[in-house]
């Protein structure tokens, strides 16, 4: 195993835990409580909901899976669409891993491969920022503490959502079902600051809605490929003109 846990490592681990137990856990919780209820609505068992959360660990992909399954899309199309929705993990782990590795030279490849599974948008954004003013030797422990809380909170909230949907009155059930889509809507529109992000947002939404009327099972893949490529081309043309 790697070096024995020193007081600095324990402290970094605890710091990671306490920094995740706040806004990050609450924001993930809101998303996953809605996911749990949508999954229950789609016929998932409690175990399938919890396993999907741990195994996929990417809320957009988990929603794509539910949505395409409801539309009876082909298996290959579903897997491809879920995978594309998670493509952002490649640049994320590309940039995160060198920072994690810098202070953990004694660690093995499998440990980094395992660490990659618990990376999420939230952990990536927070740890990339925090790693800059942190001793490289304790980053690994901070990352573990932070990621464990994020994953744990999401699993607990997904479970609550799954169990609540059957216990709540109809009105609250409608609210719970809208929670996650609403959360993503506000996040996507609220955080679309760059020109390419706004273009991709508009192109993707428009393509999905047009294709939904023609070939619903392909609308999400089409939104990604057609809408995304259109946004990319428009963005490059704009960048060249300047």
């Amino acid at each position, binding site marked *: 195993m790697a070096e024995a846990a020193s007081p600095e490592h324990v402290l970094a681990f605890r710091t990671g835990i306490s920094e995740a137990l706040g806004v990050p856990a609450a924001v993930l919780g809101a998303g996953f409580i809605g996911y749990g209820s949508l999954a229950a609505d789609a016929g998932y068992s409690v175990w*399938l909901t919890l*396993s*999907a959360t741990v*195994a*996929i*660990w990417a809320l*957009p992909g988990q*929603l794509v899976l539910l*949505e395409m*399954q*409801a*539309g*009876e899309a082909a298996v290959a199309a579903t*897997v491809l*669409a*879920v*995978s*594309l929705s*998670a*493509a*952002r*993990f*490649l*640049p994320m782990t*590309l940039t995160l*891993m060198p920072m994690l590795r810098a202070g953990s030279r004694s660690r093995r490849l499998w440990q980094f*491969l395992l660490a990659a599974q618990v990376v999420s948008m939230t952990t990536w954004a927070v740890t990339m920022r925090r790693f800059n003013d942190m001793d490289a030797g304790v980053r690994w422990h901070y990352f573990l503490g932070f990621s464990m809380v994020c994953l744990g909170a999401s699993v607990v909230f997904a479970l609550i959502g799954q169990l609540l949907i059957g216990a709540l009155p109809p*009105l609250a*059930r*409608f609210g719970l*079902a*809208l*929670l996650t*889509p*609403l*959360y*993503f809507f*506000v996040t*996507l529109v*609220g955080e679309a600051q760059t020109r*390419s*992000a706004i273009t*991709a947002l*508009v192109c*993707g*939404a428009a*393509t*999905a*809605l047009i294709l*939904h009327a023609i070939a619903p099972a392909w*609308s*999400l*893949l089409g*939104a*990604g490929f057609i*809408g*995304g490529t259109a*946004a*990319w081309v428009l*963005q490059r043309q704009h960048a060249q003109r300047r």
Partner: protein
Amino acid sequence: MHNAADLWLLMLACAAATYMWRGLGVLLSGRLNPQSAMFEWISCVAYALVAGLIARIIVAPSGLLSQTALTDRLLACAIAFVAYRVARRNMFVGMVCGLAFFMGAVYVRSAIL
């Protein structure tokens, strides 16, 4: 439609397809430039796909939400976004306002009809 074993297999295939990107990132880190044109394209595709997903869930949902009115869902989005901005990007305020409006609207409709 699907039996339980099919659902589990599909979920595991999706998990593997998601992990592929994570694992590639670990293996290729230090060898690929995350600012290259290819990554811009990947990020545009992923972003557009998620935007398409949310647009589809809100405009043409399946399951429970399909029993609600399109106008209510769209207005809930607009209200949540405005509340989020007015409250200086506070997600909690945005969610509470959007959901309160939505449940109120669903209730009023069911009371009238």
